[in-house]
Every structure is written in structure tokens, then in C-alpha cells.
């Protein structure tokens, strides 16, 4: 990693027990949904879960029973392959019954492998081909600003996704349009699907190289004119502070990038930092272990 002063991912143990319980439930839903479907992503959904729970349960101004509410904050999951995490949090938040998660990836389901805004009310974009959701989110933010709509637009990117050239087209142009109402959240879990091997003796929180090893992403965003907040993406205290800070800057002219250091596969011992859990269903035995590890007083 590039910055010795960055917060260590996962080091936080905040007092927000309700959010932590929701995140544990969410992680279990991810494991069980993917196991039921027989295919799907795990590592990225688990690294993003705390950020998504914080967004949907504390930060976003939304009405789950009125998903098209014009004043709603927008959220775009640009790393669309982590859809199961978004569906899980939306279900827990009341957009649709939690039982519907079991239809994930099945024919006719509203819960497509990648988010389809024409299929599921509450989705603000269709994503999957990487880099595109970021541009779409910028367009939404530009449109809201032109309309005088005070809603904020949040977009979540993967660190692997940030390798797409289109992402940097958006990094470049967003400050030109003074998109202070746009916040990009980077789920910097330190691994992509395959990527590069670690060098001998290289220390890293994952078993494959960081997509941005040796690159100072903070400086990169700042150089393009973004304001950068760097946090532990598993510490609800830091997450909420950063998201609220970003929203408070919404009336301004500088877009915010939140570089959230996370752990791929976070929350379950055998998935943390393991590239092989990028996308694979858990066996019955593995699911049982996950269930035990994620059990809390309010576990489902």
C-alpha cells in the first residue's frame, strides 16, 4: 500500500451495534443467496457490505415504499457484479421481501446477476460492464444540479474497476462540471478477480496483488480536483462520518472520493483475503461455518 498513515482495514469496532448486526445478517444473506443460486460473487459483496448498510440505513434519503421519489438520493453500484450485496441491503431495508433473494439469478427474477434498473424499482442505473456506472452517476448528478434538486448521488466503484479507462474519463470531467453533489466510494478491497501475483515476501491483506499497488490513488484523485477522504471501510464510525461529510459538501463545487480500505471476503474466516472467493458458492459445510461465525444475538 502506498500510504503508511492509512487506517488499517477492519481495525474499527464502533459502538453502532445495530449496523454491525445488519451487516452480519447481510453477509449471511450473501453466502446463502449465492449458495442457493449456485453461482455468484462473494468477495466483493462482503467487502462492500458495511458501506452499503451505512448508506441504506443511515445516510441515503430514500423511501423504500416510493422508490421513484424524485427527491431521493441516488445510488449507483458501478461494480455491478456485487449486485447480491445491494439486493440484500435493499431487501433488509424494505424495498422487497427478503425471501425474494432466493430468486437471485433465476429466470424471470427481478434480481438479475447484474443490476437491471428496468427490472427492479429502486435501482438508479443498470451496471455490470465496469466503469460505466461511474459516468452514469455523474450524468445523474449533473442533471439533479441543473434541476435544482438537492439530492446527492453516491456511486460505488471497485478497485479493479478503476482500471477501466472510462473511469478516468469521469474522474477528469466531474470537477469541470463542479459536481459537488457526486460522491464516489471506492471499495478498495485490494484484490481483483485474478490480477497479479504477490512478489515474494510482499505483505498484503490478500493473497493476490493490490490492483493499485505502488500507485497513490489519493494524489491521483486530488490531482484531478477531487476532495479525498480515506477511511477504514469496515469501521462504521469512519464510514458514517465520511458519508455525511461528503453529503454536506453536496452544495459545493468539488466532488468527493471516499477511498474505503476494505478486506475482500470480509467477515468470514475462510473468505477474507482469498482471491478464490471472488465468485463461488459455498458448500453446505462452508455455509454452516459462515452461519456460526456470523451468528450474533439477532442473527436470523
Amino acid at each position: 500500500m502506498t500510504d503508511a498513515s492509512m487506517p488499517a482495514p477492519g481495525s474499527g469496532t464502533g459502538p453502532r451495534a445495530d449496523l454491525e448486526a445488519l451487516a452480519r445478517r447481510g453477509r449471511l444473506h450473501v453466502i446463502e443467496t449465492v449458495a442457493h443460486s449456485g453461482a455468484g460473487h462473494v468477495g466483493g459483496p462482503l467487502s462492500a457490505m458495511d458501506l452499503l448498510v451505512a448508506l441504506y440505513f443511515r445516510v441515503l434519503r430514500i423511501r423504500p415504499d416510493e422508490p421513484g421519489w424524485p427527491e431521493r438520493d441516488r445510488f449507483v453500484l458501478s461494480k455491478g457484479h456485487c449486485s447480491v450485496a445491494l439486493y440484500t441491503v435493499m431487501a433488509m431495508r424494505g424495498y422487497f421481501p427478503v425471501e425474494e433473494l432466493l430468486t437471485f439469478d433465476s429466470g424471470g427474477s427481478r434480481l438479475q446477476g447484474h443490476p437491471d434498473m428496468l427490472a427492479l424499482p429502486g435501482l438508479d442505473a443498470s451496471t455490470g460492464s465496469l466503469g460505466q456506472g461511474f459516468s452514469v452517476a455523474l450524468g445523474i448528478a449533473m442533471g439533479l444540479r441543473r434541476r435544482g434538486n438537492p439530492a446527492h448521488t453516491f456511486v460505488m466503484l471497485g478497485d479493479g474497476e478503476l482500471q477501466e479507462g472510462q473511469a478516468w474519463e469521469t474522474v477528469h470531467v466531474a470537477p469541470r462540471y463542479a459536481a459537488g453533489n457526486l460522491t464516489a466510494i471506492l471499495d478498495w478491497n485490494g484484490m481483483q478477480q485474478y490480477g497479479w501475483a504477490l512478489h515474494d515476501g510482499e505483505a498484503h491483506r490478500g493473497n493476490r496483488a493490490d490492483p493499485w499497488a505502488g500507485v497513490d490513488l489519493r494524489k491521483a484523485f486530488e490531482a484531478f480536483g477531487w476532495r479525498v477522504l480515506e477511511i477504514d471501510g469496515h469501521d462504521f464510525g469512519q464510514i458514517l462520518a465520511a458519508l455525511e461529510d461528503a453529503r454536506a459538501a453536496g452544495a459545493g463545487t468539488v466532488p468527493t472520493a471516499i477511498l474505503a480500505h476494505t478486506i475482500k471476503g470480509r467477515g468470514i474466516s475462510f473468505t477474507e483475503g482469498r482471491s478464490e472467493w471472488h465468485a463461488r458458492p459455498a458448500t453446505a459445510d462452508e455455509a454452516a461455518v459462515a452461519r456460526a461465525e456470523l451468528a450474533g444475538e439477532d442473527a436470523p
Partner: protein
Amino acid sequence: MSKPQRDVWAETLVELAATNPDILVMDADLATSTKADRFADAYPDRFLEMGIAEQGMVGAAAGLSFTGYVPWLSSFGIFFTNRALDQVRMSVAQTHANVKIGAAYTGLMAGLAGKTHVDVSDLAIMRAMPGMTVLAPADAAEVAAMTRWATQTPGPVYLRLGREAGPDVFGPDYVFEPRRVYLLREGTEVLLVSTGMQTARTLAAAELLGADGISAGVLHVPSIKPVDEAAIAAAAANVPIVVTVEEHTVIGGLGGLVAEIVTSHDPRPVIRIGIEDTWGESAPNAWLLERHGLTPERVAERVRKVWNQE
């Protein structure tokens, strides 16, 4: 000779924007070529320069459309149908976004730019995309009418715009109707089916054939998708030979469309005239039309040959 299509497109948008505050024009740094700079001059606050970044522009256009705006995009066709194709596919077509693609410099006559910029496969690519409306205007009146129609009709539209001026085919009162095809000339022996700026040259070819005693009808297909299949099938059923003529590759464009329709109704030979399986090149327009057999004389010559073999 009517105005160049790009000029008509830009002027129509300026005119429409006077009463429609939702129209935006987004440009990937080709505004002086596409003539979108005229819109920028008239409505600087509604002109969004996105830099040389077509993919990001297409994505942002989708986002703007989700907040109720009607973004018209300005770039060369090739950069929509090739460079930003994935963005057009996922962010625009798959969401049925209300984004309008002003695809400038399409066809063979791309201002000497050569094979890197020539787009003669756009109709084939775009018509294979579910939910995309694909339009190829013949002249100034049709450009203006299509621009008006697309602006007021929800959903994604691809508008093929030539760089140059061409002869008028329609009068100023022309009103565009989606799907509709136009029988511009009656004929009993050959049906020439054409689209875009080629239609005027195809009409001239039919005149030449008529002088030779071959009765050639001309059917203009401005709406590549959606299209009135029954009307094309009916027109084809009246003649022994159908010939498609397009300023586009013979693979998958108008020729492909007509062949698909004719073979599934009342099959008969369909001869496809257009650019054979090759790239474009830098050359004067007249040279290129000659080289690819798209002048009236060359089209007539080819049809004559086919007719004599029958």
C-alpha cells in the same frame, strides 16, 4: 442541392431548443465538425463539452436522461458504433434511456479522413441492438423531420448523418413516420431499395435504367429499425429482382435487412450493392463513390448486368 445534413441537424436543434428546455447537446470535442458549435453559440448553458471521452459522454448522457433531460450527442458515428459501443449497449439501449445519438460523418464520404474514421458498418451494428431506433435520412427535410421526431419520442435513437449536402428527395413539408417506407418511383422489372444519402443517387440510377428500357422502382427505407416489413415484402413481391443499394457495407445493413424480409415472405433474388468487405480510405468523395460502385452510372451498370443475366 440541399444543405449538408450536419448543418440541418444543428440548426434544427437550435430551433427546437427555443421551446424545449430539456434539450442538451453533449460533445466529444468535434463540435466544429459536427456543427454542434452552432448549438453551443445559441445555448452555451445547454451545451456540455465532455472532452475527447466518448465512453464517458455516453454514460453521462444516460444519467442526464434519467433526470428528464433529452441529451443529443455529437461525435463521429464511428466513435459511437465502435469505441463507445459497449456504453451505447448497456447504459443506453438496455435501459431504454432517452438518449439521441447524432452520428456525424457516417457513410463513405468522411471528409478524406480515411479508414480510421469511415463508418460503413453502423447500420449493421446498431440494428442488431434491441430497442434501438436506427434512422438514415435521405436529405435535409428528412434530417430535420427525424431530429424533431426523435426529440419528442422517448427512447434511444441513432441518427445517421452525412457530412455533405445532397440532392433534395423530399419537400420541406415532409413529416417523418417511424417504420414507414416510401415508394419514390414505380417500376415493374426491378425494385431498387435504398436508404440514407444513397437514395438520391439510386433514384438517378433508376432514371438511367428507365432510359434503357428497364422499369426500375425505388423504395426508400429511412427507418432501418423499426421498419414496415410487410410493406417491403409487398413491394418486393411485385418484381422478379430486388436490388439493395446503400452507402454501407453489404454485410448486415439494408441489404441484410431486405434479404431477411424477402426470404421469409416470398423469396426471390436479392442483389446487394454497397461496400464490399473492405475498409474505407482517404480520397475525394466522387472517387470513393466510383470506387465502390455507388454513383448513379455504376449502380445502373450493375443492375443492367444483373437484368441481362436473368
